[in-house]
Structure formats: C-alpha cells, structure tokens
C-alpha cells in the first residue's frame, strides 16, 4: 500500500514546517539552549502542523546530535526510530478515545519510570480537549510538576474547551492558518517531486479549497493525482462539485441585466443537472458574499479563482451594496426555507423574482422601519424575519439616508413645531378626519403613496410629540396601500394594530399626515405578514390570507 501523501510529506525538520515561524523559532531556540519546557500546549485549526511540530520537538529533545542547534538530525538512531514510529519513549495518546480519569491515572502511574531509550519520555496528547473534567483535574498536578524526564505536549483544535487551570500551566503556542501562498508553494514542491502534472492555477485552487489546512490540501492533491490525468482547474471543479458556479455567475448576470426569463433558465439548468436546490442557493449566497467582500475592497478574501474574480469584480461594480445585501437575504432565505420541500425550485424562483428589481419604492420604507429611536416595543416577530427578504430593516440605507433627509427637511414643518402642550390642550383635530376624505374623494397616484412612504418618518415624529407609545407601535407598521382615500397600514403584530386602530390614536395619525403632507386620509390597520404582504381587502384570518402566507399568489379575482 502506498503511503498517503500528507503522511509522506510530514515535516521532518524545523525548516520544513511552513507558515509557523513564530512557533518553530521559539522551540528551536529552546532546544538549542537546552531549555526545553516540561509542558507545551499547541492549539490551532486542523492541518496547521500541531502534531508534526510535536513530533519534531520530541525528536529534537532526544536527538543524539552533538550540537543542540542541529537537533533533530534525522540521522541518529533515535531520530530514525521516531520517524519509523518505533521509538519507545515517545508516547502518543489520542485523548478522544482515552478520555477518562482512569486513563490519566494510568499515565500518572507510569510516568515515574525512567525513559527506556532516550533522555526524555515524551507524552503527546492529541485532541486534548476531549478529556473529561475529572481527567483534566487528575492531569493538573502531573502537568505542573512532572518528573524531570517527562515532557508533555498537548495538542488541540479547540482551545476554548481547555480549562484555564491547564492553560496556565503550559507554554501555549498558537498555530495559524496557513496562507494560500504558503500552501500553494508546498503543493508545487510536492507535485514536482512526485512528478504529478498540474497547472499552477489548479494548485492555487486546491490551496484555496483547503482553507488554511495543509493536510486537506495535500489530500486533495493526492486524490486528484490518483486519476493519473493532468490536474487542471476544470478537473478540480468537477471533482469538488463546484462546477455549478458557472451557472451562478450566469444567474447573477441575468439579474444584473434584469432578465428574469434568462435567470430562470440558468436556475433550471443547474437544478436539472442534479444540483440540490439548497446547495445551489448556498453557492449563490457564497458568491454574493464574495461580491460584498470585493465591494469592500478585500478581493483576496473572496476565495474565487482568478478568472471568476474578474467577472465578480464586474458584478460587484454593477450592483450597489444595498442590492447585494438584498439578494443575499433573498437567497439565504431560500437556502434555509424548508417549506419548498415539495417543489424544490420554488423558493429559489421566488428569491429570483424578489431580487429582479431592487425595490426603489421600498427604499423609503427602509427609513420608517429603522428610524425608531425607542424601539423597545418593537415586536420580536419582526426580528425573526430579519435575514429573509426584508429590506426594510437595513441600517445601511438608514445611515446614509437619515442625515440627508434630516438636513433637507429641518424640523420646520408645522407638526414638529406644534408644542406638546398645544397638542394636549386640543386633542380634537382641527380637521375632522372621517368625513372629509370621502367628500373630496382624492385621486391618489402612485407618487402620493411614495411621498407618504418617504415622509413616514416625519409623520411618526409628529406623532411622537403627541403620543409616544403610539409612535413606538407605528414602528411596527408601514404604509401598505393607498386607495380611495384610505391608507392601509400593515402592522406586524396584533398589539401594534390594536393600539394604532384605537379611535383617538387614528385621529392623531390622521392629523400628523395632514400636517406633514397636507393629505387627508382615512386610516385602516391590518395585520400583515412580514414576508408576504396580504392585500388589504382580504380577510386577514381567512383562507386566502393563509394561502398567501404560505407562498400562494392571487392571479384572478372573481366576484
């Protein structure tokens, strides 16, 4: 049987350890100066060289080379024995399977015997975080004062599971994730020596896929090499199943061009090829996330192959950050949406439809949702909808928009100037709100609604002066529809609706709208599902509303 590449290429000398200079330099100095400590703790992500360095240290401690600085020499009998795995005084313990207090007691009993061959008895305890609490406690005393011939090396990937008492008794070394360059370099060296034909970009992609782990990278190289073919980008994509990314690119392309039909085609192309809908959704989210990173000026973190990066840079330039966020939310919802089970493509299609246009007219709605200063009464139901399709709760746009809207609209409007006392003195609105609108029967245009939505924040401010709790409730409501002089407010929950539809409160809101926008409207409150708005004229607790909530659509209304 051939030895796996990552075992064959385990570093045998300090110089061969890549990317952990801060650790190897310290340990080398300790070996050279004859100042090896009695307890070390190596922590870091998998595949960063913890076990390798532990073995190196074990080897160096017992090496017979005359100059300490040259240890390990890889030539003396002990070094060779360690390399072969036959050195008696190197005891490797897998804490994952020996995690009980009895195992540690056993270790404690045996540790006092002198080493068989070398100068030191070295205990490497791998995955030490798996030890039970009692086992840790049993180890503590030994760890603090082991016999002079013993050295402990603990290795773990999860440092946060190690008790503080153990942490403080070891010299702790943190291994860092290897950079893509370091891994690529290593892969190139291996490919050259092993005579594995491979493209440079292909090796870079392997290095990227490994996310900082040498072992993962070398294993993947091993796997690719086993086909006997030359390793190219295309091969890797095929084996990793990342091939769908082309479809993702094209999908984003069609969103950019606002071509839903084309987008649907790409979507189905990928799904028909057998990609799981949720996996596809996740790939889309991953790609969109990469766009965000590029947008923020960190293209190197995007983890995209070079040729994709070019196109991604174009995409990143074409979309606004807000649009990308919106898309991420939509597709992320699709990725986590379990209800699409009977029709896997549905949630993706809905998401696609949702992102086709960045809802310009939704932007004002953004303002109203986040402008709350005292949102303590903000219902939790709204919060849960956060990562879904809601653009309404984006502080970004809020942050960018608020200053301007405040600057251009200094609080000169009548409503904001109305002193509180006056409002309290004359609680009855000057304009009787109930009759007037029906008389004038105003013809609203879309722009009326847009204006309303835009100024919603100011309206709320006006309300706040008169009635603070009401304003808080309004934070959970948004204007939904303006029809025949009736403004429908969509409320997130019953509490907000009940409060907002109290007669006195309706009057306050009506007056605020009148003062701010000079529009005289009637107000009607409905509960609206945050995800799928139910049209106002549908009974909220009826069948149709329910159907809409689970994703139905109204296509035709017959009386």
């Amino acid at each position: 049987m051939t030895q796996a590449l990552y075992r064959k290429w385990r570093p045998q000398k300090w110089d061969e350890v890549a990317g952990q200079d801060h650790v190897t330099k310290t340990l080398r100095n300790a070996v050279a100066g004859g100042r090896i400590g009695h307890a070390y703790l190596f922590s870091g992500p998998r595949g960063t060289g913890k076990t390798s360095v532990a073995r190196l240290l074990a080897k160096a401690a017992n090496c017979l080379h005359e100059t300490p600085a040259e240890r390990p020499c890889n030539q003396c009998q002990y070094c060779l024995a360690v390399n072969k795995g036959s050195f008696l005084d190197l005891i490797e313990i897998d804490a994952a399977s020996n995690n009980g207090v009895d195992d540690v007691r056993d270790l404690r009993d045996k540790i006092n015997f002198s080493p068989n061959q070398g100068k030191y008895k070295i205990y490497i305890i791998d995955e030490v975080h798996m030890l039970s609490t009692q086992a840790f406690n049993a180890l503590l005393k030994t760890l603090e004062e082991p016999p002079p011939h013993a050295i402990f090396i603990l290795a773990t990937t999860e440092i946060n599971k190690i008790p503080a008492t153990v942490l403080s008794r070891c010299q702790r070394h943190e291994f860092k994730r290897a950079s893509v360059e370091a891994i690529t370099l290593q892969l190139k060296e291996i490919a050259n020596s092993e005579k594995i034909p491979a493209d440079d970009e292909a090796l870079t992609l392997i290095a990227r896929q490994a996310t900082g782990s040498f072992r993962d990278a070398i294993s993947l190289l091993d796997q690719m090499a086993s086909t006997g073919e030359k390793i190219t980008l295309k091969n890797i994509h095929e084996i990793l199943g990342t091939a769908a990314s082309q479809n993702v690119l094209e999908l984003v392309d069609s969103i950019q061009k606002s071509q839903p039909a084309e987008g649907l085609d790409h979507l189905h192309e990928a799904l028909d090829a057998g990609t799981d809908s949720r996996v596809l959704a996740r790939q889309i989210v991953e790609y969109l996330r990469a766009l965000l990173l590029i947008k923020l000026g960190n293209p190197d973190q995007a983890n995209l192959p070079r040729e994709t990066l070019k196109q991604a840079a174009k995409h990143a330039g074409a979309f606004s950050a807000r649009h990308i966020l919106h898309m991420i939310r939509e597709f992320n919802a699709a990725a986590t949406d379990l209800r699409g089970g009977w029709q896997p493509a549905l949630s993706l299609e809905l998401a696609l439809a949702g992102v086709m246009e960045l809802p310009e007219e939704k932007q004002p709605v953004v303002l109203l949702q986040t402008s709350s200063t005292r949102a303590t009464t903000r219902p939790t139901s709204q919060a849960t909808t956060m990562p879904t399709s809601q653009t309404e709760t984006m502080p970004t746009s809020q942050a960018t928009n608020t200053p301007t809207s405040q600057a251009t609209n200094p609080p000169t409007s009548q409503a904001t100037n109305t002193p509180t006392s006056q409002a309290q003195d004359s609680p009855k609105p000057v304009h009787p709100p109930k009759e007037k609108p029906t008389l004038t029967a105003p013809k609203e245009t879309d722009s009326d609604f847009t204006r309303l939505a835009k100024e919603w924040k100011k309206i709320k401010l006006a309300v706040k002066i008169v009635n603070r709790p009401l304003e808080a409730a309004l934070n959970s409501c948004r204007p939904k529809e303006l029809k025949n002089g009736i403004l429908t407010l969509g409320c997130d929950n019953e509490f907000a609706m009940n409060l907002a539809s109290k007669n006195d409160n309706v009057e306050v809101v009506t007056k605020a709208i009148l003062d701010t926008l000079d529009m005289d409207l009637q107000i009607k409150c409905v509960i609206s599902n945050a995800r799928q708005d139910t049209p106002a004229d549908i009974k909220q607790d009826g069948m149709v509303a329910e159907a809409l909530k689970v994703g139905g659509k109204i296509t035709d209304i017959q009386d």
Partner: protein
Amino acid sequence: MDSPTVLVLYGTDEFAIDQTIRKLIVAMGDPSIAEMNISHLDGHNLNMNDLNTAANAIPFLSERRLVTLANPHSAYKGAKELKKLSAFIETLPPTTTLVLAEYLDSPANKNKSFYEWLQKLAKAQGGKVTVQTQEFNMPGRRDLPGWIIRETKKQAEAYKKHIKIDPAAAARLAEMVGENTRIAVQEIGKLLEYVDFERNVTVEDVEKVSIVSAQQDVFTLVDALGNKNGRKAQNVLQQLVQNEDPFSLWGMVIRQFRLLVQAREVMDGGGGQDDIARELHAHPFVVGKLMNQASGFDLKSLEEIYHRLLELDEGIKTGQATIELALDMLVVELCG
C-alpha cells in the same frame, strides 16, 4: 529551629503561594529523601487522621518534616473547629513545619470571614508556637506591567542574561494576559525563548508570539466600524472568524456595543471617565478607550445597531443565517 513553625500563606496570587511552597520544598534538600518528609493535604477533603499522622511523624533521615495544608479555612470553618486546630497546633512536634496555604478570591481585607479567622488563629496561640503570616496578592491591572518587567528580568537572570522587556511591550502583554500571573509567566518564558535571550523584547515580538486576545481585535473591529472603514473591518473580522469560536466572537461583539451604548449614555448625560467607570464597573483604562470609541457614534445610532444585533442574533439562533454571514452583513450595513 527547634520549635514547631506554622506558616500561613494567603492571598489571591495562588501562583506566588505555590512558588513559596516550592522554595520550602527545595530547601529540604535532596529530593529523594525530602520526599519522605513532605506531606501535601487539602482542606477540601481533609481526614483528621491523615493530618495527625503527617504532622506528628518523626522526620526520617532529616531534621524536619514539612506538612502543607491547602485551603485550611474550608476544613476549619466555625469557632469550634478553629479551637480544634489551635489545640492541634499546640501539640505539634518541634520538628514539624506546618504550612497553611489559603487561596482567596479577593484580597484578605475584603474577605472578612477569612480575616477574622486568621486573627483568631494568631491570637489563640499565645506565643507557644511561632505563627508567621504572609500575604500574596495578584498585581492589579495598573501594576501588572511593572510586575511583568520585574518577572522578565528575573527569568532572564536565571540564565545569566541581562535583557529586558520594553515598557510598551510589557503594557501590551499585560493587556493580553489579564490578571493571571501564571499565564504571564508562561508568556514571558516564551517571549524570552523567541528572542533567544539575546535582545530586549519589543512590542512586535509580543504581537507576533503571544496569544492574541480576541477582545483586542473586537475592539479594533468596532473601531473600524465607527470610522466606516469597511475594508479594515472586513480584514479584522476575517481574522477573528478564522481563529475564534464563532459564538464567543458574536458574544464579544454584542458586549462591545452594549458597553458603548452604556458609555455613550453616561457621556451624553454629562458624565466623565470616572462616572462611566463607576456605572460600568470597569477599569478606568478600559473606560478611556471606550470613551474614545464611543465618540465615533451617537446614542441613537448605537441603539439602532444594538437592536439590529438583536435581530441578527435571532436570525442566527433560529438557523436563518450563519454567524459569519450575519457579521459580514453587519459590516456592510454599517460601512457599505
């Protein structure tokens, strides 16, 4: 030394107490013989017989016996029990040294019950037995850099090297290790090894070799968010995500903003550094940095961010987004 000696070592710095005991052990001479004349007992699970046997045994091939009793206070709690201990001490053979090591969570003068216990113990002896007490307390946050400088010198001198740690580096290290002298000692040893005892330890060395405290990075992250430096925020975030447990990272981000909201509120109310320190129960040093950072935000936006964090938190915990994605989105929303 022909009278029994009782040594009471107490305080918050368990490391220093242990070191003192270690010195006593070394002073016993040849380890193989000394071992037979040393007993370690713990008050948490003390058996009176054991203590009796250990303390009253005759030293073997040596002049003295050393008996250490950790956490004596938990074995002798009430006045009655204490009397027993006093009586026991009076019967100690002259060849025995009894070390009582009491590890405290707060300095002795704050730990009333222990203090009273100690005074009573001293009083009850009536001069028959020599009772010595020695207090060891953790260096406070302010004193830690100085402590680190002294400890570095000490460790270097143990190898007959005369190198130092730069004051700035000591301050940085103090920030990293917090109030934990054991970890500080380990880190100093590692740093000295890194520079091979050849040159002074600098800030760069500390940052390269010592364990990075994530809290510091979270601070930098929030700083970058305040300055709307999306690129930097993203960079720091990426590093944090790679090295930290996501949930604890998320908790730290939330904590930072909560502190900022609180600090900002006090500042807006006209409060100064001391007021914030009092309200938040935080160290003035931390508060100073906090104030700096809080001045980059106004209360309203901080509150909004905090509410937004709650929303993201629910999203994370209901499986609607991963922590990484949520943090990414937060960065873009604040800096995009």
